[in-house]
């Protein structure tokens, strides 16, 4: 038994010095990891030291084991302590950093834009759906019959003149109103039914800020056993209140449209001044909004319905005009001008 220091003690001290020195010197988690691997990894110096135990005398093994194990524990604790220190220092440094520029522009992810015509159309469709109206879609190139005769518009009617209609070679035409879908709807559904059909319509006329040769309408049609002017009044007030999201008053004036009888111009209470009188309503409190009326029996006949059995009301709402009213668009030609900047001026989304 000797009390002198064993030879391996120096090696342990040296290994401790190397390992702990590297750990203390580590300034980042990466260098700390290197130091850790350098000590405790498969080829680490502490690991190498531990392997020497097999070559020692049995008498020495216990002492060596205790010393080496102690070293490993010491190194492990040093790594933990160092890691914690590095992490805390990094957190402190980040929190102390004053160079972060929160004013740089946002990146990516900006949504695109749906056209206001589509948005308003969809919004209206949803209002009508909520009130039990079906939504339909009909052709834009139509037959003369569907666009005119079926709607009780005979050949002598001024609306039939060449100057109002785009004709195709061969006799078809571009529908001049969504009303062209009325007889289609009557054949598509078993009465009673109620439906709207929005879409593009065309007029052969020169354009200015308030007229375009192509614009959008939304037709409404209700067919039932008994449909009266009183019903029309109630339906229009309810529907328009839902569309304008507020209580709307309506009034009917005589208006002549061959496919309705009686036919009306419908005025709504001025949304700008609440009927107090303003320039928009020319001080009258009323603004002309849409034509409507009770479906003419000839139209019911063309739709395959017996006028003694079925009655109806119909209206035609100017979608383009509604978009212009709602968003203050002062030139209708902007709607179909194809300029992305116009569309992007509206809120994104549908």
């Amino acid at each position, binding site marked *: 038994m000797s009390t002198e220091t064993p030879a391996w003690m120096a090696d342990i001290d040296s290994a401790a010095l190397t390992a702990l020195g590297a750990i203390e010197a580590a300034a980042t988690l990466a260098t700390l990891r290197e130091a850790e691997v350098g000590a405790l990894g498969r080829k680490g110096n502490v690991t190498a030291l531990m392997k020497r135990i097999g070559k020692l005398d049995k008498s020495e093994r216990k002492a060596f084991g205790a010393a080496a194990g102690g070293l490993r524990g010491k190194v492990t604790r040093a790594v933990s302590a160092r890691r914690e220190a590095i992490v805390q220092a990094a957190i402190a440094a980040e929190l102390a950093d004053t160079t972060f520029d929160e004013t740089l522009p946002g990146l990516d992810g900006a949504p695109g834009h749906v056209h206001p015509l589509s948005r308003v159309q969809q919004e209206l469709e949803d209002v009508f759906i909520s009130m*039990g109206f079906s939504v339909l879609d009909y052709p834009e190139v139509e037959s003369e019959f569907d666009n005119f005769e*079926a709607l009780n518009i005979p050949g002598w009617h001024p609306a039939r003149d060449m100057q109002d209609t*785009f004709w195709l070679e*061969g006799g078809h035409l571009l529908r001049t109103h969504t009303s062209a879908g009325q007889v289609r709807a009557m054949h598509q559904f078993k009465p009673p039914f109620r439906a709207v059909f929005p879409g*593009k319509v065309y007029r052969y006329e020169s354009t200015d800020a308030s007229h375009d040769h192509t614009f959008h309408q939304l037709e409404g049609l209700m067919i039932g056993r008994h449909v009266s002017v*009183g*019903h029309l009044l109630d339906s229009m007030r309810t529907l328009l209140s839902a569309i304008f999201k507020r209580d709307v008053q309506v009034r009917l*004036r005589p208006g002549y449209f061959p496919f309705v009888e009686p036919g009306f111009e419908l005025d709504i209470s001025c949304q700008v001044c609440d009927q107090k009188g303003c320039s928009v309503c020319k001080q009258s409190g009323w603004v002309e909004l849409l034509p409507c009326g009770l479906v003419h029996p000839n139209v019911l006949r063309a739709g395959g319905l017996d006028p003694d059995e079925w009655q109806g009301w119909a209206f035609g709402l100017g979608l383009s005009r509604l978009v212009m009213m709602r968003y203050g668009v002062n030139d209708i030609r902007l709607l179909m001008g194809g300029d992305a900047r116009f569309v992007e001026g509206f809120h994104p989304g*549908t």
Partner: protein
Amino acid sequence: MFVSWNWISELVDTTGVDPKAFAERFTLSVAEIEEVVEFGAGLSAVVVAEVVKISPHPNADKLRLADCDLGDRQVQVVCGAPDLKVGMRVPFVPPGVTLPSGITVRHGEVRGVPSPGMLASEADLGLSEDHDGLMELDGCDAPTGTPLPTAIALHDVLYEVDNKSITHRPDLWGQVGMAREVAALLNRPLKPLDITGLTFGDTPPLDVAISAHGHCRRYLCTRLDGVTIAPSPVAARLRLRSLGVRPINNIVDATNLAMLETGNPLHAFDASSVRGDQLIIRQAVEGEQLETLDGETRHLAPTDCVITDEQGPVALAGIMGGANSEIVATTTGVVLEAASFDGAAIRKTATRLGMRTDSSARFEKHLDPETARLAALRFCKMVLELCPDAQITASLLDKGAHIDSPPAPVAISTSRSYLRSRLGLNAEQLSDAWMDRAFSALAFELRGEGDELVVTVPSFRAGRDVGIAEDLVEELGRVFGYDHIPSEAPQVAARPPYLPPSKLQERAARQALAQGRGLTEVVLYSFESEPFRKRAGLVELSAAGHAEPRLRLANHLSADQTHLRRLLCNNLLSAMEDNLLQGNRAAEGHKGLTIGLFELSRAFVPLASNESAHPAADPGLPPALTDSTARQGYLDGLSDALREGATAALKSTAPLPWQPRRLAIALGERLGGGQQGLVSAPKAVSVRLFREAVGAVEDLCRQLQRPAPQFKRQPSVGQLPDGLIRHPGQVDLRPAWLHTARHATIAVDGRFIGLVSLIHPEVRSRLGVPAEVALVELDLDALLDVTAVPEQGEAPPKFPPSAFDLTVPCQPSVRADDLRGVLAAAGDGVVDGVSVDVQWVSEYADEGTDAFGRALTFNVTSRNPDGSLTDDNITQIRRALLGSLLDHSQVRDGWAQDMITHHS
């Protein structure tokens, strides 16, 4: 059309009615009033003066001094009017008065002579635009000094009625028709027009023959002699002025006054100018000419109707008289024409010759031939008043089909309860007595027992206006006042509304492209711009390839509207160019210089000759009317006026063209630096835009719950890749903008859906801005036809997958998806129950000369649903995949073998 309240008040007692307040009731019950105009207001300070002496102005040749009697005093004023004469009565404006024209009359001097006031013209008083001479107050008996509004019925309230709102009401084109409405609304009687005291001769004025029966249904004619042509009295002149008609002379003014009153236009010939003793109403002969009253020579066509004497035309029927028979200063005998011409024929001629006159505008409304007689009588009465020496010297000749076979009165059978129910009123709200009164006020006659009614329509409403019970509903409703009808919720069937799948699809597509891809929706015209197509080279390219037929318009307003678009992308490309030209958007958008547009719309594709019987083709007719019995039943139910046109339209209807719903996408990027026409796009930009377009289509299919789309080049341009189905009306295989080397067909579930392509380099070189653009055009209906991918709630796999990458050196011409397919097929079934998924990850292209300088990296994911994968499993799969590339001609020789040997 103007309504004169003064005139109305001569025919109805309007005591106690404020015309301005009444205007609203009129609008709600009769016709839309555009404006209520006050005529002759603000003139109460103007007085009647009589010129008693005229002396020269000492300092000016063109001015004179007029001594005027103002009743209580005399003044001398300076006057420049050449027509000044002693004894004439004129309006005098005292100094300090501001006239409606804005002029303030001063107490001043004119060339050194004091002039305290002024003698006024009609224009000075704001009564007309006519500045010629002083306003002569002839026919005004009021003492001098009387305020002008008292002396003559100067002040009037005029309703300017929107002409469009009375096109269907021929009776409202005369004041008497308007007065009847006012009488009905006020519940006061309408006074009859005065046609008393007229004595006609025994002999007809002329012989009249009508050969153009279709054009002229009635022709009345008489003659007056002893006429002295002179200006009409001031009251008549003002009345014409107020209604927008220029006074000419007493005879012409009488024709106009009678027209304004009754609505039926009249014409007066100078009797001595009519050659021979016969008038013939006939169709014009090709090449015939007539100088009309406005001095223009009109070249006539056989569709026109003319009035001719022995030597030729003397009037263009219903539109304007001829210069050769004009009433002139020396006229003493007048031949009056009061006729009823066919509205459609008059409209046709007036439109063809560009002559819309007060007369043609009225005839176009299809006037009641009965009114012509009333107009003739009122004319005679007025001439006798305006021209006291005149005498009627002939009988009132009355000819035409209307006289030979007068039409039967229109009688409508209905019931009181029906009329009430359509308005939504009950018998308490709308009593029998009220109904009787309203109808009779409008000149409808009622018969019938109890609830049943037979209503006879007055002739002036019977033409094309009132013919069915629904028309009577309107008559009652508007007199009752629609604002007094209580609104009532309709009883409706509780059924879920139908929303077509196409609508839901369009909504989802917008969502996917706008929200998901950040694209901007545009709505473009259906017409194709030919100028753009030419400039962008699309015309040349389509001619060189295969020009697909498009629908052509028979009439168009500009070169932008000659054809309907067969593809959406042409217009979208044009819009893209415009947007790119708008310049640098880097600051605005998140995508830098890239602009992304999309459009959902219909395209228009003509039916091929063999497609007209295609089951999907729209016949353009209501289905019930394609059956001949049903069609006849329908036609029999129509009025004569409609039946003829409906028969023709039904007969001539051809099936409609294809109108497929399309989606088009354009992704464009402005290229910096290059010059227009010389720029070639960097391949990286082209690849990125193309891949963004592909990604948009993939997103779209995902959003629409359709299987993932497949992208394949056409084997040769115009040829569908093997196995794809394409229906008529779908996207063309070779649109002009198609880049023949950089495009793909889009297929979903074996169906052709559309195309994605970069623009043809020729098109790119011709754009007005250096740019690269990728286009997508696809058929929404075809996509809708593909069965949706079913959704299933599957439990997620319990065991993690195992993945490795494989980087394959290959030739640049290899298609990544082909290689991916080879690998995926090789991995399939290598290990029982293990699925192998291969995805392309990235590529590296060496620009050098190595033929295998492209490296494609794939990620291989293997998954065993029942357990973990062993290292052996992975090695097996890896070997199988590499094995599949051993003999691949586009993969570097020996590479796969080497990988198997050394790295597995």
